[in-house]
């Protein structure tokens, strides 16, 4: 049984009249195995964020089945950690308090989560910034806190909604490498939403190309680039060949 199991998933938003109903997602079939790194690739409006919201439990589907770890998703929770595009850190808490917020509200004992939080902050390289407020950090650093907090949560599934979209190109590359390092170490299942083909190819094992109106999975592309992957791999011939293929799929 795969970690995330989706069949025939639909999501419709009612409009003012039936003609204005929006079919955000239609007939989505998706099976993601434990520890896989999967990308949802598509233009704006293709429903990839909606799909992520459904898996996260922020919204409910209109039809079909959605199982995470064999159980239906009824509400959000720590089993699926979410990393948002704008980090969404609590601005009145410092880095440390943001990272331990999850275990704290769940009432877990400090002895259990504090070492893990320290470790996650060390992995993302923010140990020296424990007592800084989010407003004092750069965009890239805030995203690192966003990643550290879901890792501290212990989520086995990470849902990432264009997490590096708001960053400049250089920072984005650094963050991509960081994410791969983290994934290599901890092996969570990752569903990564992006509109950037390079990013999808560099990071994932498998890319689901989506099309819009209605939102559908158009094709599934395997990415057999060997791991660990260095950033230089994005300039190789095989990389470009896959990129050409995906461009062809998107722009048919």
């Amino acid at each position, binding site marked *: 049984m795969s970690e995330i199991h989706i069949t025939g998933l639909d999501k419709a938003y009612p409009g003012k009249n039936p003609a204005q109903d929006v079919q955000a997602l239609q007939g989505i079939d998706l099976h993601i195995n434990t520890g896989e790194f999967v990308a949802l690739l598509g233009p704006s409006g293709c429903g990839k964020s909606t799909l992520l919201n459904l898996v*996260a439990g*922020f919204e409910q589907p209109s039809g079909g089945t959605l199982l995470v770890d064999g159980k239906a998703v009824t*509400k*959000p*929770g*720590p089993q*699926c*950690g*979410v990393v*948002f595009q*704008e980090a*969404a*850190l*609590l*601005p*009145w808490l410092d880095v440390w308090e943001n990272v331990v*917020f*999850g275990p704290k*509200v*769940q009432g877990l004992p400090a002895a259990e989560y504090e070492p893990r939080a320290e470790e996650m902050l060390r992995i993302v390289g923010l140990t020296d910034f424990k007592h800084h*407020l*989010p*407003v*004092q950090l750069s965009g890239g650093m805030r995203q690192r806190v966003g990643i550290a*907090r*879901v890792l501290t*949560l212990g989520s086995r599934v990470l849902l990432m909604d264009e997490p590096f979209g708001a960053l400049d190109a250089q920072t984005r590359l650094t963050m991509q490498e960081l994410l791969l390092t983290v994934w290599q170490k901890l092996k969570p299942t990752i569903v990564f939403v992006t509109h950037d083909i390079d990013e999808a190819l560099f990071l994932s094992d498998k890319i689901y190309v989506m099309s819009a109106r209605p939102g559908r999975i158009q094709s599934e592309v395997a990415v057999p680039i060997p791991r660990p992957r260095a950033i230089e791999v994005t300039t190789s011939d095989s990389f470009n060949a896959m990129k050409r293929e995906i461009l062809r799929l998107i722009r048919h």
Partner: protein
Amino acid sequence: MALNAFAAAGARVSRLGIGLLIPLLALVTWQVAGSAPELSSIIPTPLAVLQGWDQWLFAKPGMGLNPYLGTWLSNVQYSAYRVLQGFTLAALVGVPLGLLIGWSRLMAHLFDPLIQGLRPIPITAWLPFSIAIFGIRDMGSIFLIFLGGFYAIVVNTTQGARDVERNLMRAALMMGATRAQLLRRVVLPAAMPSIFTGLRIGLGIAWTAVIVSEMVAVKSGLGYVLWDAYYVGRMDIVIADMASIGIMGYLSDRLIVFVERRTLVWRQMQSH
């Protein structure tokens, strides 16, 4: 380096100087015009006001009929104490209520009609009601102050609770927060800037309420003095009283801003 400090200090002094220009001009005009015989019986000059104020502040209260000797502080204390009670009550009721109304549609449907329905009634219109229920006593004044502060606090708090960024809520839920924890740990802190706005506006209105209520409802305080001094023809005290009210309003506002700056450190650091 020292030159920069000099330049900065000089800039500040000249800004202060320009700011004082028009008030000084107004005071001088007032002094000159007030010395003219036609006007001196109606409006006292600034110097006369200062003299009367000085006595009101520092003179020894005698056995005579002049109630404005050294009684300034006690009058201020009466009013300030009423404002403190009424405003604290308004905050204790208004903030939780505002949060609940912004948080729960059910609470909004329950309480909105009553609050919005009573809001247009000006505080002065509540005076007869307050006297009828509470009589000429402190409680009447405190009730009106409560009303003055309450609406501003509730309305601003509700807005603050409603405006919480959706992704903050989603992040907290994703991390395992219950609905109750969401209210206490996300909505409340996120609404704090709006709550402080409500507190500042509410306090300003509370001061006007205390003045109005003291004019008829009680027999002490700055509002009472305002009317009493006019009644006995002490216009110098009237004007000194007006200035005192302005000062008290200003100082209490500064107090809230001070607390706000300490509490909302994260807001202070946002540079926009």
